[in-house]
C-alpha cells in the first residue's frame, strides 16, 4: 500500500480529517508524524535560514521525521480559500521551500489551492493530485466528495460541541474526550491552530489553563457568521486567509463576556504582527476584557510562559474580587 505522509504541523489542525479521507478513499495509507518534540524543532531549524518563523521550522522538523517512513509527502500550496483573500507567502512557497531545504524528502504531492482561478481549475488540480494514486477519475471524484463531507462534519463537530481540533480528531477516531464543563469561567485563546495546539511550542498552554480551573475557548468553536460579523466590525474587508482566526475571533471574544483573552503569535509572523495589533487596539478601546499577547519563538522558556500566565490569571481574580466588592 502506498504511504502518504502528513506532517503534524501548520495546516494539519484545520484539514487533517479531510486529507485523511481523501487519501484513504484513493487506497493509500496515511501516516502522520509524531507530536512535536525538542528534537523535531532542532532538526527543523537546522535546515532553514534563521529568520524563518517558528511554525515553519517545526514543519520542516516534521517532514524530516518522516523522510524514510512514507512514499509521498503531502504539502499543499494554499494560496486562497476565499475570493480575493490571500495567504502568507510561506504557505504559498511551502512545497518549493521544503524541496529546497530537505533534498532527501520523498516526492512531494503538492496542490495549488486558489479559489480566484475558478472552481474548474480547482477541480483540475484535485484530479491532478489524485492521479498520483489512482488512474480512475471517478474514484478521485468520490474520494474528494467524501473528503469534503468529512471536513464539514469536522467543523460542525467543533462548533456544536465546543471541541478543539485535537479533541475533535480524537473523537473522530473514537477516543473518549471529557465533555467541556460549561459552568467553569472561560478564557479565550486567539491565534492560529498550529500555535494553539502544538504543546511543545506553546508549553502546554491549554493544559495550564485547564489546570487553573478555566474552560478554554478557541477560534474553531465559533460559527463563520460570528467571525464574519466581528471582522466587519474591526477591519471592514478581510485581507488574509486566516484573518478570522485572529481578528474575527479576537473581536468576538472581547465582547462575549469571557474572563480574559490571550493572543498567541509567533515571533516574526508577518500577518499576525498586524492582525494581533488590531485585536490589541480593540481591547484597549473597549477596556472591558483583559487581554494578553504571548509571542512564541524557539527561545521562549517554559518558566517565562508560566509566570506571565500566572500574573494574568491573578489579575483576573483580583478584578473579580474588586467587582464583587463594588456590587455589595
Amino acid at each position, binding site marked *: 500500500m502506498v504511504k502518504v505522509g502528513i506532517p503534524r504541523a501548520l495546516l494539519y489542525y484545520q484539514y487533517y480529517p479531510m486529507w485523511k479521507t481523501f487519501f484513504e478513499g484513493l487506497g493509500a495509507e496515511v501516516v502522520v508524524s509524531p507530536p512535536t518534540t525538542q528534537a523535531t524543532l532542532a532538526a527543523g531549524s537546522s535546515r532553514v535560514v534563521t529568520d524563518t518563523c517558528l511554525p515553519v521550522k517545526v514543519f520542516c522538523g516534521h517532514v524530516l521525521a518522516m523522510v524514510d517512513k512514507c512514499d509521498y509527502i503531502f504539502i499543499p500550496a494554499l*494560496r486562497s480559500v476565499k475570493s480575493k483573500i490571500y495567504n*502568507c507567502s510561506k504557505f504559498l512557497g511551502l512545497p518549493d521551500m521544503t524541496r529546497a531545504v530537505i533534498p532527501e524528502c520523498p516526492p512531494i504531492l503538492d496542490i495549488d489551492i486558489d479559489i480566484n482561478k475558478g472552481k474548474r481549475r480547482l477541480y483540475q488540480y484535485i484530479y491532478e493530485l489524485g492521479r498520483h494514486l489512482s488512474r480512475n477519475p471517478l474514484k478521485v471524484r468520490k474520494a474528494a466528495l467524501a473528503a469534503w463531507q468529512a471536513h464539514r462534519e469536522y467543523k460542525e463537530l467543533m462548533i456544536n460541541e465546543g471541541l478543539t481540533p485535537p479533541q475533535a480528531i480524537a473523537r473522530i477516531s473514537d477516543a473518549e474526550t471529557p465533555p467541556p464543563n460549561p459552568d467553569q469561567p472561560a478564557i479565550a485563546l486567539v491565534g492560529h491552530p498550529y500555535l494553539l495546539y502544538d504543546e511543545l511550542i506553546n508549553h502546554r498552554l491549554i493544559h495550564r489553563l485547564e489546570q487553573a480551573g478555566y474552560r478554554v475557548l478557541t477560534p474553531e468553536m465559533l460559527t463563520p457568521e460570528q467571525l464574519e460579523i466581528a471582522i466587519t466590525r474591526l477591519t471592514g474587508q478581510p485581507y488574509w486567509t486566516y484573518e478570522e482566526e485572529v481578528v474575527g475571533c479576537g473581536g468576538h471574544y472581547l465582547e462575549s463576556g469571557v474572563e480574559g483573552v490571550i493572543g498567541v503569535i509567533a515571533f516574526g509572523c508577518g500577518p499576525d504582527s*498586524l492582525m494581533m495589533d488590531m485585536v490589541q487596539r480593540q481591547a484597549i478601546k473597549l477596556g472591558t476584557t483583559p487581554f494578553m499577547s504571548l509571542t512564541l519563538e524557539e527561545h521562549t522558556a517554559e518558566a517565562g510562559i508560566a509566570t506571565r500566565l500566572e500574573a494574568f490569571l491573578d489579575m483576573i481574580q483580583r478584578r473579580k474580587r474588586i467587582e464583587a466588592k463594588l456590587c455589595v
Partner: protein
Amino acid sequence: MRIGVPHMGNLYIPLKALLERLELDFVIPPVNNQHTLSLGVRYSPEGMCIPFKLTLGNLIEAAEAGADTLLMPAGSGICRLGYYAKTQEQVLHSLGYNAEIVSVGVSQRKLFGLLEVIKRLSNNAPWSKIISAFRFGLTKLNVLDEIERAVQKVRPVERVKGTANQLFAQAVKATEQADDYKALKRVKTDYLEQLSLVERDENAEPLVVGIIGEFYVLLEPFSNLDVEKELGKLGVEVRRSIFTSEWTKFSLFLNPLGVNEKDRLHKAAMPYLKRDIGGEGWESVGEKVLHAKDYDGLVHLAPFTCMPEIVAQNIMPSTKENIPVLTILCDEQLGKPGMLTRLEAFVDLLKHRRRAKVKV
C-alpha cells in the same frame, strides 16, 4: 484639503511635479532621516517591516505639517502592503491626527485606477490637465533614473571618489527645479555629459554585483544604508534589478497589454519555485538563476521579517546555478559598521573568485 505623501527614494520629485501642475495644496515630509525612523518605530506594531515603519514616520510628519489626506500605495499583493493603510490610519487616529488615508491601488486597476484617484483628489480637474501633469511627472522620473544608471557606471571607476555622487545630488536638485520639458532635457544632457567627462581609471575592471530583493528597501537608500554608494566606494559596479521608471512603464502601461517583463525571471525560477509567493520572492530566485553567469555576485536586500524574501532566501542556496549571494536584512537595528564589514568581506571573496577563474 492638503495632501501628504510618503517617501521612497527620489519618487517625491515626480510626485511633487504632478501635484504642482494640478495646483493642489500638498506637503512633502522631510526626506527619511533618523527622526522619521524613530517616529515610525515608536508607533508601529513590534514585528512590522521597515517599509511600514518609515512610511508611517513620513505620514506622521506629513500630518504634523497639516496634511489631512495622505496617499499610501496599496495592493492586494500577497505581502503585508495591502494591510498597511488600515493599520497606519488607526495609528494616526490614536495619535490624534484627523487624517484620511487614500490607498492608491497599484496592482488591480493599473493606470486607470491611479488616474481615477488623481481625478478625485484634484476636484475633477479636466482629464487633459491630469494627463499632461502625469506625463510631466513621468518624464522627471525617467530623467532621474537615466542619470542614476550613468552614476552607477561611473562610481566604481572614478579617480576621485565621490565625484559621481556629488554630481548626482546636483542633478536631483536640478531635476526638482526644472519646470518644463525643455529645462528637463537640458538637465539630462548636461549631467550625462558631465558624468561622461569624469576622470576614470581606464584599466579598472570593476566587479559587477546585482542588487536584488524587496522593492522598497532597494529603492530607498536610507533603509539600506546606502549600500549602492558603499559598494561603489569599494570599486564595485552595481546593477539594480528595479528602477521606479521601468516599474511604472511596465505595471501601468505594458502589463495590461499583456507584455510582462518578469516572465523571463519566472521561467528561470520555475525549477526551484513554481508559483508566485507575493512581493518580489519569485523574482529574487529568478534573478539568481538568470544572472549566475554574467554577474560576479548578488546582494540580496530584504526587510527583516519580510515573508516572501525569507522563502526566497531559503530556496536560493539550492539552485544549481552558482553565484555568491549576500543577504542583508534591513531594519532599524542594522548598523553601518557591521554592514560595511560584511560588504568588504563579500567583495574580497568575489575578487578571489575572479582571480581564481582567470588562472584557470
